[in-house]
């Protein structure tokens, strides 16, 4: 058994034996170098209550090269690509150190969810949303946690959100206001296109005052 395999084996059994961290590592298939990690969303954040799964690929020269990790669960976070799940975190790149383990890296991901870094974003649109209106961002992140990560969902304070269970609300997923989307839809544009355009323009919070309707229509006609 080569050193890399032995180390992976140890790391998995270490995770199994540690019940306090709540971090799990499983195999995808027979390969010991393609794993699935999961951890609960940190408390006191929009991700609380969700279970986040991570795709782990262990490179040939592990532990001298960093593990490759990306989210399987969709996450609304400035440093995680909302489309591909790619993660922007220094220890997964040049700040990797061979003493880091799968467990410690997954804990780092967990704490990345606690402290977003919008100035070094992976997903620029999400980062803009975060910078423009944190409360609106958190609402959207909570909604994503609810529909993708099995979270408890938002406290039912605003009428917006899902009508029936299991139905996904595109407007909430995009982090937009229903009223805005409806307004442009009545102009005769396709709903999905409106959502797309408004998201690209970051049509949220104080930004709305700065974006003229003409600008939106221009974007829609593109």
């Amino acid at each position, binding site marked *: 058994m080569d050193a890399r395999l*032995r180390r992976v084996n140890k790391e998995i*059994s*270490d995770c*199994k034996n540690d019940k306090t961290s709540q971090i799990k590592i499983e*195999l995808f298939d027979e390969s010991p170098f393609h794993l699935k990690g999961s951890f609960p969303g940190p408390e006191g954040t929009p991700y609380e209550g969700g279970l986040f799964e991570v795709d782990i690929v262990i490179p040939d020269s592990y*532990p001298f090269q960093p593990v490759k990790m990306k989210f399987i669960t969709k996450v609304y976070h400035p440093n995680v690509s909302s489309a591909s799940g790619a993660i922007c975190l220094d220890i997964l790149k040049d700040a990797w150190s061979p003493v880091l383990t799968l467990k410690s890296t997954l804990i780092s991901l967990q704490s990345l969810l606690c402290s977003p870094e919008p100035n070094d974003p992976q997903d620029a649109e999400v980062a803009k949303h975060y910078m423009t209106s944190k409360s609106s961002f958190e609402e959207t992140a909570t909604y994503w946690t609810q529909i993708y990560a099995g979270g408890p969902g938002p406290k039912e304070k605003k009428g917006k959100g899902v009508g029936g269970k299991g139905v996904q609300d595109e407007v909430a997923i995009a982090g937009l206001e229903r009223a805005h989307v409806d307004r442009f839809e009545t102009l005769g544009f396709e709903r999905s296109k409106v959502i797309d355009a408004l998201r690209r323009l970051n049509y949220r919070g104080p930004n709305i005052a700065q974006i003229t309707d003409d600008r939106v229509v221009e974007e829609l006609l593109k």
Partner: protein
Amino acid sequence: MNFLSEDVPDPTDFPPQAIAPGLRTLDGSFRCDICGELYDGPVTIACGHCFCSACIRNCLLNKQECPTCRKSANEVHIRPNPVLEDVISAWKEARPFVLGLTKRETERVGEKEASRKRKRSSENPSSSSSIPGNTPGPSNRDISSPTRTLKAKSPSKVVKKPRTKREGNAEVNVISSSESEEDSKPQALKFAPRAEDLVECPLCTKKIVYRELNGHMDNKCKNDSAAKSWSLLLGGSKNGQQKGKHKKKESNSDDEYPLPLTTYNTLKDRQLKDMLVEQELPITGNRSNWEQRHRQWIVLYNSNLDKSKPNRKTKADLRKDLKRWETENAKKKKTVIADVKAYQKEQKMEFAKLVEAARPKKAGEDASVTIDTSSPLPLPTSSSTAPGDATEITSEDE
């Protein structure tokens, strides 16, 4: 799943803190943070952190900082840690024994718990009185037998453990004899040598009469005929005893110095080949093979030097290690696609999925977009008969 069921010793072999305080941590702290194995040739770097010699050397090739605290570190900071090395070899010996003890102990505790429950439920005086008498009996017998076998191998290492267990008389006798041996050695060392005593020359490690030592060293260790005759006269028994003690000093006098790291970029093929030949390494493969081979050889060779002499491997063994490393590396690099057609058939769904995923982004635009997005796929060079999307993409690529 089978790789998980394979038994790789790690700290979790020991019961958790609540049952066996400190043991798990102890085993963990004897392990290198990089490879997770018990230290193999432990070394310390400038910041004080400890790693296997080969591990930290490999690390420093990538980045010149301590993997643990990120303080800057360098090859030249590496110092061997012979004390820890001794600790590790003792622990390697003791580990299975301690594991056995803890296992028995947890079983015993479990039995006791069970018996206590039984007692509480049945309130039977006869059973409760028989159990405390019974349980220590077998466990005592179990403990003593492996202790004896271990003791036969290395009396000095297990001295303290059996003492705390308070076992039979025979055991105590063995202990006291081994202890007196231990005591006598350091005492002998404490004495300052008298003028006529034989001492070891710190330069050439030959035995010299103490009063002649200065002259001998001034003569650059050449004039040792007198010393030779003395050592012959005084017999070999004393010599043999001292040899073992001074092994570490001897290694300094050998011509075994670490090899320097090289920047290969400035070397010509010829020079690089010569360097390999000089180390008696094969010169098969291409230039990058040579560089990797030489670099890894330096790591292996230097880390071997960081071990104390009895633990070192021979050069022949090191060469075998290098060869194994190279074949393993070659295996990792190649993602062998044995049957290209079958591979494409197998991956067809995957290709289709990727193409599908790429399409809606720029709906309505021409097909070249989808091909662009899917081009970084690790496509094998295809033959023209391969089916479906795969053919389309590869032909566009070419």
